[in-house]
């Protein structure tokens, strides 16, 4: 079973929910797909057996001796990643999506493909929580290929995916294939607006969803009214308390200090299982 945790708005508590849920239920693989800013592993300082390897994307390698500067590759490239000059061919590697089209269209067979690292994939273990995360290199624009590679490494029976914020392509890549999506929001106008966009995304992808309201007690009733109108279950509420905020800020899982929450997170898993059935 794959459960993804997404939000629309950033900073609503995706990582808070994913990490505490993982620690509470155990025997789970926590996959952090927020590769631009992965944080979930920070909450497991006792992690061991950490290993990492490069994630690469394909890029064209041009054999200048065979190349006749005919320009077909640059004409074909949908991303303007190749510029052909009388003396040479320039590759703007950050623009390349690695589709392989240039190698296919080259009439001289002058283009082969090489690998370019865009980030790293990490694995570690904390007790019976297996951690997997990706970290995009600074200055690298494309998160999606790294998210795809991180997900391909996930092999557990129960997988929790911490998604990036927003509602664009990195989020789609992260939640694709999930059996259920937990949408974390806060009861404010910003939280509501971004939740409503996130709901459209998961509905279009035909993934069942439920809401976790974080920092409940602040704000207004907008999120609750919306969920009722749209018939979206609110599966858990985490109140705004100074204690939870402080523990989070120090990188401590609040369910380990406030142990009654372990049962509540286990209950959340139960509700998700029920909803999928």
């Amino acid at each position, binding site marked *: 079973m794959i459960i993804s945790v997404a939000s629309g708005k950033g*900073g609503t508590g995706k990582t808070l929910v994913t990490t505490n849920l993982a620690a509470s239920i155990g025997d789970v693989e926590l996959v952090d797909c927020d590769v*631009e800013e992965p*944080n979930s592993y920070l909450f497991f300082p006792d992690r061991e057996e950490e290993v990492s390897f490069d994630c690469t994307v394909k890029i064209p390698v041009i054999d200048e001796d065979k190349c006749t500067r005919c320009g077909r590759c640059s004409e074909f490239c949908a991303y303007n990643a190749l510029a052909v000059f009388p003396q040479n061919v320039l590759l703007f590697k950050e623009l390349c*999506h690695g589709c392989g089209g240039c190698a296919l269209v080259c009439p001289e067979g002058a283009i082969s493909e090489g690998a370019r690292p865009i980030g790293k994939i990490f694995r570690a273990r904390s007790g019976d929580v297996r951690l997997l995360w990706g970290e995009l290199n600074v200055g690298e624009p494309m998160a999606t290929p790294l998210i795809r590679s991180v997900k391909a490494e996930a092999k557990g029976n129960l997988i929790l995916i911490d998604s990036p914020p927003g509602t664009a392509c990195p989020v789609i890549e992260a939640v694709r294939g999930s059996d259920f999506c937990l949408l974390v929001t806060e009861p404010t106008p910003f939280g509501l607006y971004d939740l409503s966009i996130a709901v459209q995304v998961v509905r279009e992808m035909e993934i069942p969803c439920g809401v976790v309201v974080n920092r409940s007690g602040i704000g207004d009733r907008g999120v609750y009214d919306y969920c009722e109108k749209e018939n979206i279950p609110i599966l858990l509420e985490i109140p705004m308390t100074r204690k939870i905020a402080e523990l989070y800020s120090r990188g401590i899982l609040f369910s380990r200090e406030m142990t009654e929450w372990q049962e509540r997170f286990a209950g959340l898993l139960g509700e998700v299982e029920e909803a999928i059935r």
Partner: protein
Amino acid sequence: MKQLVVISGKGGTGKTTMTASLASLAEGVAVVADCDVDAPDLHLILKPEIRETFDFLGLQTARIDPEKCTECGECEKACRFDAIHDFRVDPRSCEGCKVCTLVCPSEAITMVDSVSGHAYVSETRFGTMVHADLFPGEEASGKLVTMVRDLSFKVAEREKKDLILIDGSPGIGCPVIASITGTDIALVMTEPSISGAHDLERILGVAEHFGVEALVCVNKFDLNPEMTDRIETLCRKLGVGLAGNLPFDPGVVEAMISGKTLVEVEGPVGDAIRSVWDQIKKKL
């Protein structure tokens, strides 16, 4: 003309709340651009009245004509984006590379343009605002950010404004890079937590990579003064300027609910933002 971008690395650290307040302080001199195109919230505070609407054409997507398709499966094999299954294209995965049109032996695949969102030029109580919405789940948010920035540049020239004030998106990837390239100052919002500190270091790396001067502001600094100290020490070590910090104040959410900026209501955060604005003005 100068360009100031508000970014953060970690989400939910107060970019939009800060941008809205700066828009109010820079009334009459700035054009505001909301570049957080896949979770735009600035309009909830600035309440723009739309004057002009533009279609945003994102990436093209492939379409398979079932009449011509012989179900040979070559396209599915060649697609690097896992976008073709059972002789159908998933437009959400298709990145518009056209490789499938190359390998199809029966010319059954064509590329089609799709409107992926809209960009708007609008009036607000603080002046002109350029903003956008990306249809949920669409790609190329970086391209839409560039469209918003191009439009705001034209508007600023037309209105003879000295400043473009940009609300960025969280993260360090394509929409963020599209938001900060070519700006003069990046105001980087963070919060005093392990996550906030970790993400700050990475976004400062991005600002440096693209040659943009960064100024850091710690939001809710008093929730963890020790972590705030660590963040400030890190900034000094990296030679990054401090713009001043904002205290935790439950009034922030109340202001959001009433659709007001923090300088339009009484409170400690509004005063802190005025002093941040003074720091920024010195740099500009």
